[in-house]
């Protein structure tokens, strides 16, 4: 029901709830690893004990979109794959953020070609872009920290309820 989003004024109670919700959301960012290509190897490296991502709260990388907040798109996105990525992004519940990892997702990378999407921001709203081919694991952790800072500034009223519009739900 989104009870907390109904708080509109800026009193002490509301800002405390804001701070609490933002703190809990930013310290438990569970990524959805959209590992398509070589950047996925660096993302796997971020998952293992040397560059631990679990110490930042991303304890599990759930491979289902239903339980994730953050989508890390790691790898070259072709036009055929773009539909799959968009569909999985649509199936993630709010609030959600996107990291565009590597050169291929930021701008097409070294693939200036007819079948590679030149930057995933053509169909996804991206929050943090990462440079590198592939970016080092510490670079991905830096991006995660920036996402956490961005989440820390959100307020609970940014995500109000939005009831489903009355229409027949079609399975596509």
């Amino acid at each position, binding site marked *: 029901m989104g009870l907390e989003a109904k708080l509109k004024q800026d009193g002490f109670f509301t800002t405390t709830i804001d701070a609490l919700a933002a703190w809990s959301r930013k310290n438990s960012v569970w990524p959805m690893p959209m590992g398509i290509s070589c950047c996925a190897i660096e993302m796997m490296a971020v998952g293992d004990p040397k560059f631990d991502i679990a110490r930042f709260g991303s304890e599990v990388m759930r491979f289902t979109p239903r339980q994730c907040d953050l989508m890390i798109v790691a790898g070259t996105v072709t*036009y055929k794959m*773009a539909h799959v990525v*968009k569909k999985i992004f649509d199936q993630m519940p709010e609030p959600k953020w996107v990291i565009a990892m590597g050169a291929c997702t930021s701008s097409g990378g070294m693939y*200036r*070609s*007819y*079948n590679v999407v030149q930057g995933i921001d053509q*169909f996804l*709203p991206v929050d943090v872009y990462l440079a590198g081919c592939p970016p080092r694991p510490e670079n991905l952790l830096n991006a995660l920290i920036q996402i956490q800072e961005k989440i820390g500034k959100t307020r609970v009223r940014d995500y109000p309820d939005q009831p489903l519009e009355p229409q027949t739900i079609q399975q596509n």
Partner: protein
Amino acid sequence: MEFKDLLLNSIKENLHGFEFVASEFRDELTLSFNKKDILRVCHALKNNPDLSFSFCEDITAVDWSRRTNRYTVVYHIFSMKNKFRLRLQCDVDENDCSIDSVSTVWKTADWEERETYDMYGINFNNHPDLRRMYMPEEFEYYPLRKDFPLMGIPGSLPLPKK
């Protein structure tokens, strides 16, 4: 004698009326011939027990972008018994853009010819399942032709909306 001489002698003995041009580049032998002989030659090369070219490594094409004989279909075949690689080349004209399929000789030629069809638009006669491989089924162009632009035709590949 070397396998190369054995090969050329064997071809001269077993295949009659077969004209070809043999060229060599850095120890790689290439035979160029008319495309109507392709099936006969491939059967002979595979089924001959001395030659036994049992593995078709790749089938691809070259677009010369000239008016006659625009494409050349290139077959790379390998004989595991003799450890010998051979290249076969056949010219294909743009107006009669088809060649016989060798998928009855080598099973791997099935997908390799599908790839060549997808990228160049060359039809393979008697192919069991000729359809696009990399591009979506509704794609109307052939990407590796010389007249296809590098960045593609805008709007030919659908992108999801933001």
